[in-house]
Every structure is written in C-alpha cells, then in structure tokens.
C-alpha cells in the first residue's frame, strides 16, 4: 500500500532523536572532536536510545527497529552532530548484525552484554575503498575444511577497531561468491590495526577510524549465523549500515540549511536581509529541494532493505548513498558560503558540517554514480 507517512513510532523516534540532538549532541560536538571521543555522559544518553546496541527485548534491549526507523533516528541525531551520531550507529553495528544474522547461540553470547554495557563498543569492518560495493569485497572468508575458516583482507574506516567486542568483519566467500561475516574478539591474533591519524579525520573525529588488516583463522562459532547462514539477511543488514551513513549526511545537510537560513534572515546587506537576494536564497532553496529528493531516495532504499534481498538492492543502496554524499557535501558547502567570512570561523557550526559531510562522502564513494563536474 502506497504510503509516505512515517508511523507514529517513527515520528516519535524522529522527534526524540532531534530533541536529543538539540539538547545534547549539538553542545557536545566540539568536545567530542577535540577529545576525539564521544563524552561519556553523551554516550550514556545516546546509549539509552538503543542506537549504540540495538537488541531485541529478549536480549535485554529495546527492540531492533526496522531500517527506516533506524535511518530516521540517525538523521535526527545527525542534526545535532554527525560525528557523534555516526559513532553511535557504527558502534551499534555489532549488535545489529548479530541480532539480525547471528545464530541463537551468538545472540545469547553477545547481545545481553552489548545491550547492558554502557561503556562497551561494537564495530563493523565493512568498507574497502576503491569504489567497491559489498558484492565486490575482496576480503575472503573461506572454508578451509574441518570447520575452520580463513579470514583475510584489508578494511578501511573501521570504527572502534581496537575496542569493539566483537568486531564484525564482512567479506565474501570465494566459493559461493556470497557475503559472509565473522565475529572477531578484541584479543584475536592476526588482526593488524593501523595507527589512528595523528591529527584527526576532517569532520569525523568523534569516532576512531583505522585501517585494519585481517589474516586469521576462525572456528564455525565465529562465523556470523554459522556455516549455513542465509546470505540474504546479511546483504540487507549491510545495506542498512551503508544507508545509515547517508542518513547522517542528510541530517547534517538539513541542519545546515536551517542554520544558514536563519542567518540569512538576520544578516543585513545593502539594506535588506541576505535572504532577500536570490543569489543567496536560491542556494538554500536548491539545497532544500535536493534534500527532499535525497531523503525520499534514502527511504525508498531503506524500505527495500527490509523487503528482503530482492534484485538490484545493492545498486539501489549505492545510488542512495552516493547521491546523499554528493548532495550533503554540496549543501554544507553552500551553507558556509551563505555565512561568508563568518561561515569560515569556528564560532559557527557550519564549518564543522562542511567537514563532516565531505568526510562522510568519502566513506562509500563510487565514481560510477557521479563523475567529476566543474562548478562552471
């Protein structure tokens, strides 16, 4: 049934996350960046939303939201700070994958702890760069026989690599070509974690990101969902994680437009508010138009994720992610432009959003979806 209204629950989640963003995240953004970690008190409050460890009630959590709810929550939180929002979401990736794709034993082994440990972190080793979509991942999770599996590959932008418990590694089974995931404990051998960049990561400093190389063998118990796991579940869950980055980008972009519009209403030049100049107002109108299209595209892809692994899902996700990355980078850029010299100062948050949106746009970028075009 064609329906574009969020459910009552989704609206509640949206309002709650937006409220938390305004009350808590916005004020903590600078701190999280400076200290390169989400402040404990902020983490605690985000933890309570369930985003950092979505788990069913059976496992002591508040339930696993559907994908759209997840995206709506993330967009809302990102209006406060995309860095903190994405840190929370990425940490929650472990619980999400275990809850959606794990065996019952795995769920009991991990979820109650993840759902109750306010200081715990999870993480998913997902991206490989080079424009690769999941089906092209070169990280191998391959059966060696006798219930032993070889796990080998290099992942980039791995969040909480040094502390995630467990770190979930996504790769492909070269025998079947299907997506597989492995549960890697923090003390596992054969895991080489690259150094964290000394001076930060553009706009994503609330979360530690590392390049990690894996070369280890695991037993069947560490294979997410066990040897007979249905790959389709994992395809959907990975799609959700990828779309979450797009949701954070959109939240950041939408907030930038609000902020720049408020500034343009107040700032006077040539006897009128800046907003009265179409050279300014059209930048933000274009931004609002693009965000609307972008959000609907994201929602559509999110709903498809929950509909199961139907054909074209991966490409639909890639389109949504790349369009969101491109729109958010351009919108946040224009927000700085509207504020002019003030936009370049750290007194206003638009400069942070400019950084964060650009950084988010590098995470899952594939040039086949949008080639370089000069501004003029």
């Amino acid at each position, binding site marked *: *049934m*064609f*329906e*574009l*209204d*969020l*459910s009552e629950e*989704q609206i509640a989640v949206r309002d709650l996350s937006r409220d938390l963003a305004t009350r808590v995240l*916005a004020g903590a953004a600078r701190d999280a960046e400076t200290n390169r970690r989400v402040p404990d008190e902020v983490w605690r409050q985000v933890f309570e939303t369930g985003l950092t460890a979505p788990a069913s009630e059976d496992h002591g959590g508040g339930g696993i939201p*559907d994908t*759209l709810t997840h995206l709506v929550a993330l967009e809302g939180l990102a209006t406060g700070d995309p860095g903190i929002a994405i840190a929370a979401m990425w940490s929650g990736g472990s619980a999400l994958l275990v809850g959606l794709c794990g065996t019952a034993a795995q769920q009991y082994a991990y979820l109650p702890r993840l759902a109750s440990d306010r200081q715990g972190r999870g993480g998913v080793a997902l991206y490989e760069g080079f424009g690769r979509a999941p089906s092209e991942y070169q990280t191998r999770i391959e059966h060696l026989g006798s219930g032993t599996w070889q796990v080998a590959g290099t992942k980039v932008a791995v969040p909480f690599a040094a502390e995630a418990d467990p770190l979930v590694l996504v790769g492909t089974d070269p025998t079947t070509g299907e997506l597989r995931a492995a549960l890697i404990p923090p003390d596992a051998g054969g895991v080489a974690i690259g150094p964290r960049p000394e001076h930060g990561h553009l706009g994503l400093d609330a979360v530690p990101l590392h390049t990690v190389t894996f070369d280890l063998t695991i037993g069947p118990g560490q294979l997410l969902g066990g040897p007979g796991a249905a790959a389709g579940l994992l395809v959907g869950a990975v799609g959700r994680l990828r779309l979450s980055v797009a949701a954070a980008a959109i939240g950041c972009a939408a907030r930038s*437009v*609000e*902020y720049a*519009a*408020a*500034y*343009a*209403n*107040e700032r006077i030049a040539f006897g009128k508010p800046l*907003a009265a100049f*179409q050279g300014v*107002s*059209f930048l*933000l*109108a*274009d*931004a*609002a*138009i693009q965000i*609307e*299209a*972008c959000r*609907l*595209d994201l*929602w*559509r892809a999110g*709903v498809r994720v929950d509909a199961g692994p139907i054909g074209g899902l991966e*490409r639909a996700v890639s*389109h949504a992610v790349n*369009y969101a990355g491109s729109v958010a980078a351009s919108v946040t850029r224009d927000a700085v432009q509207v504020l002019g010299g003030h936009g370049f100062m750290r007194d206003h948050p638009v400069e942070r959003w400019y950084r964060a949106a650009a950084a988010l746009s590098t995470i899952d970028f594939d040039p*086949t*979806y*949008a*080639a370089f075009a000069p501004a003029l």
Partner: protein
Amino acid sequence: MTVSFELSDDLVGYGREIRDWSVEAVRPYARYADVHHAAPDHWRQIVETCPVAIGTHDRRQVKRQPAFAEGKWVRDLVVTESLTYGDHWISNVIGAGIGHLVVKLMGTPEQIDKWYRPIVDNGGQTAFGLTEPQFGSDTSMVETTATRDGDTWVLNGTKMYCTYGGQADYVVVFASTDKAAGPAAIRAFVVPKGTSGFHVAKFNEDKLGIRSWTTSELLFEDCAIPVENQLGWTGGDGDGPGPAPRTRSGRSGALGALAQNKPNISATGIAMAQASLDIATDLLQEQRQSFAPHRWSLVESDLENMNAALGRARLVNFRAQWLQDLQRANKTEASVAKAYGPPTCERVIRRCMQLLGPDGASTDLLLEKWYRDVKILDIFEGSGQVQRIIVGRAVFGGADRVA
C-alpha cells in the same frame, strides 16, 4: 501503516496498459503532430482504441477513470507519464485544462455545480487566461480590465499562452476590477466560448516545441458576461469593483490551481526523458561493439545514472500528490517537484542525443522533438525560478533564529 513506495499492482498494470498503448497508437503520430502543429485528424479514433478508460475531452465519449487505492492525484501522475510516454500530443486532445479547477477553488457552490461538475462528470475542456504580453511570473501586473455595466461585467484586454484557449468550452479570465486598488482587485471571470467580443487572436503560437498543444492568444473587446460569471459572486456588496473581500483573491486562487498541476508537468517531462533514454539505450546496446571499452563504461554509467535521476524525480512528484490526495498542504512539495524534474529531464534528453552522436539530433528519431518539447516544462505554470521563490518561503519562513 508503514512507508511504502510500491504502487498497487492494479495501478501499475493500468499505467503499463496505457503506456504500451501510447507507444503503439500515439507515438506513430508524434512527428505528424510536430510538423502540422496539430493532432492527427482521426485523433478521436485513436483515443477510442485505448484499452483502458483514459477519457477524452469530448463529453459524449467520456469514460470515467477508475479509482485506485492510491488516490486520484497519485493515479494521475502515473496516467500522465504513461500517456505521454508515447508522445505528448495526446494530452492536447484528452486533457481537460485547468479552468474548471479554478472554478472549484474560487467558485460558489452554484458556480461549481454549473461549471465544474459537468466537466468532471461529462468531459470538456476549459482554459485559464492569466498571462498577458507584458508579464509572465508577476501576476500582479494584470492589465485586462473588468468594468461593471448593469448586470454585466465588460472585459477588455489580451491574454497570451492560454492552453486550449482557442478551443475550450470556457476560459477563466483574470481581470482587474479597479486598477487603483492593485492586485487584490483582480477577479476571475468565466467567459464561455462564442461570447460576443471574445476573439481568438491567434489559435496557436509558433513554438519551439509542444507544437500541437493549443497555445492561444485571446482578445477581449468589450466582451460582456453576466455578473454571476464572476467567480465567488454572491450578489452581495463585495462583488462590486475593487478589492475582493474574500480570503482568496483572484491571483492566489489561480496559483492554487497551478500548484495542483505542477507535479503532472514534471511527470510529462519524465515521460519524454524516459522515452528518450529507452530509445537511446536500445540503440546504444545494438551499437555496443562500436564503442571502445573504456568509453562503453562511461556510456553505461551515464545510462544508469540518468535512470536513477528520473527515479528521484518521480519520488518528489509522488510525495507532492500523495499529500494532495490527503488534502494536506503541499504547496512547497509541489514546487519542489516542478523545480526538480524538468531541468534534469532536459539534460537527460540532450545527453541521450549526444551519446547517439549527430544522428541523435536528426528528425529520424524523436529525441530532437522531445528536446524541443521539454523546454517549456521548466517555464510554464511557474518557472523554475518562481518555484525556488516558493520553496524559499518555506526555507526562510521555517528557519529558527541563529543559536
């Protein structure tokens, strides 16, 4: 309830039937319509071959459109894209115009019964006369006058670019009842075809595209119509010359009627662009071996990204009309839809021609026609610039103070 972008199988099937028919029955006359600036003479026979109930503007032939779970406006988006996928000329012979929508928005119950109901029940075409030679977007500049003379209003002035103006059952004409009183004194008047003093100065303009679409210039010379043809007429004090006392002025009523139609305009552009893209894709696939491999990668990316862009344009259209079906405010969303689709549809068609090379622009294909047709869509019924102004009102009106 949960968000779903899936149309019902019924509506999808209905759209597909119309689309297939449009390719088979309508497209063969696309070039004819362009060259002759008119639909083929036997258009009525063509329309009658349609397997589903698309209706015609001829009231004796009308078939009612079935209802779908999605609602009327969402259905109309599907129908509009499907119908015009073959070619756009079909719109001109089956479209009802928007004059009657203005009647519905601004008329009294009696006026709605008299002028709106018969059109939706039995068919017919109505026109809308707002634009004049000296203005396009700035509708406060109406110079056509309406002067009260006993029980009549006497109209004088010129209206341009009136869709169906030369053939409609009636035209809703916007005229000032008191120039000194400014825009608020602009009222709307129903002028039936054949009224004395109502002349069709030019039946159809010589245009870049959509040439079979009737775009008339109308001249009103001492054209007298009964006072009750003024929309909103109650016989009370407010019906004299000067500012209208009602909350909805003439102009905003007119613009309201336009807003409802905006996503359909975009859907027409999507139809042209999708048709171009589908034709180009087929031709390019046939010629694949003629492209160097590294270039073919780029051709494939272009084709995929154009399809994705059209897909997004459909989403914003659906969003606007879904709100319309629920009778919720959608002014901003309708403007988003109209701003978003048309300029990208232009680019899609141009890019398809480029990918096909010089032959892509020849009249042996229809892409060059659609490239001419599509340009009006970002101009009429509110240009892209006007839509940005409207969207901007929501952006700036809704903005918080800077923290």
